[in-house]
């Protein structure tokens, strides 16, 4: 688990309940609109959970009272709301739970206060933007060869003897 958590905690504080929700709301809306955003890792990691959950809720359909309440709060304007229901939900019908991806950027040195920020890119999967140059795993290392073999074995139909 990334740093910044006390034991047994899953959510960051980000300056109190009210501020936290306000900040997350802005980031979630930016992500729906632009499909890819660049923030610090802490904010991206926190937004990721809420974006996944929001799409899960939107999948329940527009008839649900709980869905309408939550979507009304979490989307700022009508265009984002329409995009959520008409673009993102059909895109992720076959996906299960994980709709976003985080890629790390080089740390940002703020010279005036001599501090570092860990930057990251958060994006929705299946977006129309050009793909990020993410470094791929080498499939020829010993571990990856073994894992691939184990996966293929797992997927084969088992003979019950």
């Amino acid at each position: 688990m990334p740093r910044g958590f006390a034991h047994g905690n899953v959510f960051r504080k980000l300056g109190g309940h009210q501020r936290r929700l306000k900040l997350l709301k802005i980031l979630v809306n930016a992500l729906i609109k632009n499909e890819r955003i660049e923030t610090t890792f802490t904010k991206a990691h926190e937004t990721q959970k809420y974006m996944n959950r929001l799409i899960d809720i939107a999948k329940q359909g527009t008839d649900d009272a709980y869905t309408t309440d939550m979507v009304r709060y979490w989307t700022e304007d009508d265009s984002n709301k329409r995009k959520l229901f008409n673009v993102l939900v059909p895109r992720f019908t076959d996906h299960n739970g994980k709709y976003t991806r985080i890629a790390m950027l080089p740390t940002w040195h703020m010279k005036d206060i001599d501090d570092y920020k860990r930057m990251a890119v958060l994006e929705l999967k299946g977006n129309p933007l050009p793909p990020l140059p993410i470094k791929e795993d080498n499939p020829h290392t010993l571990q990856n060869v073994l894992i691939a073999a184990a996966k293929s074995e797992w997927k084969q139909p088992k003979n019950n003897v």
Partner: protein
Amino acid sequence: MRTMTRCFHPAYCELRCCTQARSSTTFTQPKRPTLKATDSKTSFVEGREDPKLFSPEYVPPLVRPEWHRNQLKYRLERMDCLRRRNVVNIPEFYPGSILGVTVYDAYAPGNKARFVGRCLYRDGFGLGCKFMLRNIVEGEGIEIIYQLFSPAILKYEVLRLEKWLDTDLRYLRDADPEYCTISFDMPPEAPLPQTEELPVFKGKVKMKDRAVWGYNYHKAWPRPYNAYLEEYFVEEDFMEQHELHTKGGHGHLEFDICKHYDTRGLKEKLMEEMELNQKRINMADKKS
């Protein structure tokens, strides 16, 4: 080789899959049972429950992080609950109904002690399930927490079966005492048959003066529906977010979607599982 690896780039693969999916199939929205806007925020489950098939203690707890959930442990514990229910008759009851419980007590005359009270809440998962009874005896409020599957409990009696809109009725401590004064000689009412629908109590309970409250009920989320708070507040007080977000309030929980636990979809799965469990137990009994 390079072209091959590019072909299997995850982003590219997904893009291709998605375009195919979009062109080939049309989106049909999954259907859900519609709830009223007022009922959507409580953990209240519709319909009557057969305790051998579904009971609130079968719902697994919301444990985070996700990989700390032990599904095997939850399944085994549900099985143990059913084994216990086959031995002792634990009737169906909800928060709000009036119960009489007989417990083994070494120091009481006849080694038995009986207590009657209104059930305020049920809590906990599996064999650790607890419920609280409250009664006012000679002007003194008494609350006792019992373990539902405790071997010390000899007998359960449901004196009156009631279901309220709320699942946590601890605000009855600060309500009019008539709701919790129950005589120990109260005769049990005729039980409703399983097929008949149980009416839900949607009325309001009269609260004491606001200065005597032990808790800020108007700041709580979910808001207690059966408490008559409108006597002291107007609707605009509830809607004011500042009041809810201040130190004692839970107002932020209303929209904090990652902290919610939606158990509506779990009921059918659990009922199927418990039916299977009953069959397994019967098979094991036949063999031995």
